[in-house]
């Protein structure tokens, strides 16, 4: 089962469960049915967006500098520039 199939099947399951609640097939108290159930998809969307933002912010917050990798990357860029320039490619200025 691919990732897409898994995601689609879970989405379908949740959608059918929500549709059952929305159409009144599952009995709720009138207050919940009228005020909570219609709001659930929007709440899920906002929660999903907030979760993604949280995950992003946490990644940015905990990402430490990597000086050796930076040095290695800079030397590799320098090597690539010299090699390409020797072959006649316009590598621009630093």
């Amino acid at each position, binding site marked *: 089962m691919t990732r897409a199939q898994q995601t689609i099947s879970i989405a379908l399951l949740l959608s059918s469960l929500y549709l059952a609640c929305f159409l009144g097939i599952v009995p709720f108290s009138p207050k919940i049915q009228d005020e909570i159930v219609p709001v659930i998809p929007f*709440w899920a969307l906002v929660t999903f967006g907030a979760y993604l933002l*949280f995950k992003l912010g946490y990644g940015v917050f905990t990402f430490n500098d990597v000086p050796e990798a930076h040095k290695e990357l800079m030397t590799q860029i320098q090597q690539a520039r010299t090699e390409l320039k020797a072959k006649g490619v316009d590598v621009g200025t630093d």
Partner: protein
Amino acid sequence: MLDRLVGLTMLIAASAVFLYYTIWTLFMPFVDEDHPLHTLFPPRVWAIRIPVILILLFTTVVGSFLSVVMIRSNRRKALKAKAKKAN
């Protein structure tokens, strides 16, 4: 230093939005009408309107960007085909 600040801001913003919106949509219906807590929240219709407006805005921006890029790319492809034909 600055990037840690940006990350922290995103963390706090995400948590604040989630908390505020959850209390607004899922908890406020069960709070009595005359409780002072209601002064912190706008009328509940806005809990639906604001996400809908944001979704429409987002799809508009993404759609416009996509269309501009595709039109530009097609124009370039047509120019290239015309130049090739002329040769």
